[in-house]
């Protein structure tokens, strides 16, 4: 697959403050790419540069081959941008809102009516067609905003925190819409702070901290990258304290301890961290059995995205 978004050595400084530092990243066609990071990590700056609203201090980015610095109009043709706020026009009906933006993208007048109906159907707002925009709920506004990004059938959607400030139901609806759009062949590059959003729908994620990419890849790939810091849970019949001493003496094992809050009668629950490969982990189990511990359970705890996020970020902000 070819990269549709290519970011190379991108930097953005505000006075002496570096918001984005030599960012290099590429997103393939058709990907649903989640850009996560804490507040002030530089997500919005990166997205605004991609949307041609902000001039980079250094480096460049290309969307579908158009440089954001040299050919911003070319970029605008192929992207649909949704900022992290909903720009409301008073006195405008839902269909007029889409009609206005369709006209801004030079869609011929005779095609607009059909287009607006299709888009409103897609975002399930066809029943609110004649309502005023400022009367819609926040979730509906966000869906309308998403419909607005689609009026010119762009290849790439750049969405800044599309689910922020929404109630759980609206968030799920937006998430489903993004999946649907991805299925329709759109490349979606979106930022979020809500980890469950990316965990459930993204084909790939990038974690940004203090203006730098600290990890990138599919969630699976990131888990594997972190495999050197695997967490193992085990349950024994008895002799918990002895097992802890035994484990801590083994190579690659650290932080062996009793699991907090897990008190099944007749069982001792332990956990430890292991930095090593699979045969090594198997040897740990063998060592325990050789030492006479009666093992009931021995399993590697899966990393959820929160784990991944907490491990790769250091809590830095620019």
């Amino acid at each position, binding site marked *: 697959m070819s990269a549709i978004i290519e970011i190379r050595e991108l930097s953005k400084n505000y006075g002496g403050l570096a918001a984005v530092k030599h960012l290099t990243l590429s997103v393939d066609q058709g990907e649903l790419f989640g850009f996560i990071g804490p507040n002030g990590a530089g997500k919005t700056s990166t997205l*605004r540069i991609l*949307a*041609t*609203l*902000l*001039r980079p201090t250094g480096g460049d980015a290309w969307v579908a081959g158009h440089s954001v610095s040299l050919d*911003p*109009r070319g970029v*605008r*043709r192929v*992207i649909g*941008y949704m*900022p992290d*706020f909903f*720009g*409301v*026009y*008073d*006195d*405008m009906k839902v269909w*007029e809102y889409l009609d*206005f*933006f369709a*006209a*801004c*993208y*030079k869609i011929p007048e005779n095609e607009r009516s059909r287009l607006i109906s299709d888009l409103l159907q897609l975002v399930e707002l066809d029943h609110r067609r004649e309502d005023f925009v400022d009367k819609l709920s926040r979730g509906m506004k966000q869906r309308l905003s998403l419909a*607005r990004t689609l009026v*010119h059938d762009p290849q790439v959607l750049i969405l800044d925190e599309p689910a922020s400030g929404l109630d759980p139901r609206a968030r799920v609806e937006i998430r489903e819409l993004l999946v649907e759009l991805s299925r329709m062949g759109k490349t979606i590059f979106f930022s979020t702070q809500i980890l469950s959003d990316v965990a459930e729908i993204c084909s790939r994620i990038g974690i940004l901290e203090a203006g730098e990419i600290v990890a990138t890849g599919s969630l699976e790939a990131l888990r594997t990258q972190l495999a050197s810091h695997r967490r193992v849970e085990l349950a024994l019949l008895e002799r918990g304290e002895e097992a802890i001493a035994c484990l801590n003496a083994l190579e690659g094992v650290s932080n062996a301890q009793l699991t907090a809050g897990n008190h099944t009668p007749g069982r001792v629950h332990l956990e430890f961290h292991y930095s090593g490969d699979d045969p090594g982990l198997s040897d740990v189990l063998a060592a325990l059995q050789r030492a006479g511990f009666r093992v009931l359970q021995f399993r590697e705890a899966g990393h959820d995205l929160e784990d991944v996020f907490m491990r790769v970020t250091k809590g830095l902000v620019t």
Partner: protein
Amino acid sequence: MSWIAKLRKNPVVLKELRGRMRGRRAFVVLTAYLMVLSGGISLAFLPLANRSLASGYDLALRQYVGKGIFGLAVLLQFITISFIAPGITAGAIASEREHQTLDILRTTLLSARDLVTGKLMAALSFLFLLLLAAFPIQSLAFLMGGVELEEIVVAAVMLITATVALSAVGVFFSSVLKRTLASTVLAYAVSFLTVAGLPMLLMLLLTIATPVAEFLFMGGSGDLSPVTAVVLLGIAWILVSSNPLIAALATEAILVDSQSLWYYLIPLPSSPQFPNPSDLPVPSPWIGYVLGSLLLSAVLIRVSIRAVRRPEV
């Protein structure tokens, strides 16, 4: 594509007009404007009409009343437009910025030129509607007579120019400033300066300058060269042309005095080098006002487009 077709195709014009004409606001503004005009004219007209009735048919008086009504209508139109134009243009771009819709617009294929001219044209369409709606009130003057066709045309051209210029000033401040409030304050300040400030300043200058001019031109000091005279006249002409009210009064004076709509001949003082200088033809001040204002408007619109186009640094 013709100019009108381009205007029709500009999505901003349609959006703005849709928003402006929806609801009661436009209707209220139009009504208030017409009430101010008709109220003001009624107040001036009634005493004169009574006098006219009392004295029977007096052609000179009727013409005098006609001219008065016409002049007052134009003056009131000018003052009300000076209030309304900044109000509807000073938020043009700044409000988009405040509603955070400017960013969205800037990622579309809508050009900065289309956005700025669309906002201006939509505002002008409404303001021209106000001017047009006042025409029946203005035409009351025609019943009385005394108003020449030239005067009607020049007044219309000057009113249209003032409307364009004040709107351009509003759009300009709205493009270069971030906040609607700041933009509105400055647009009104310029408008107030045009309506009241400049004439007051000119009055002050004239009070000081008249004795000097009398000494130079009439007293015949004898040693004022025609070059100095031309420079002084040029400065005075620019000052007079810079304000629509003063320019209109001067134009009217020239029209009455020399029956010329286009220029006025000013005799230059003689000097030893130029014993018999020929009279200097000076364009009527309304021409200066119209050309100057339109030029200024074009510059302001250009700067506004640049300000909107510029990406954030």
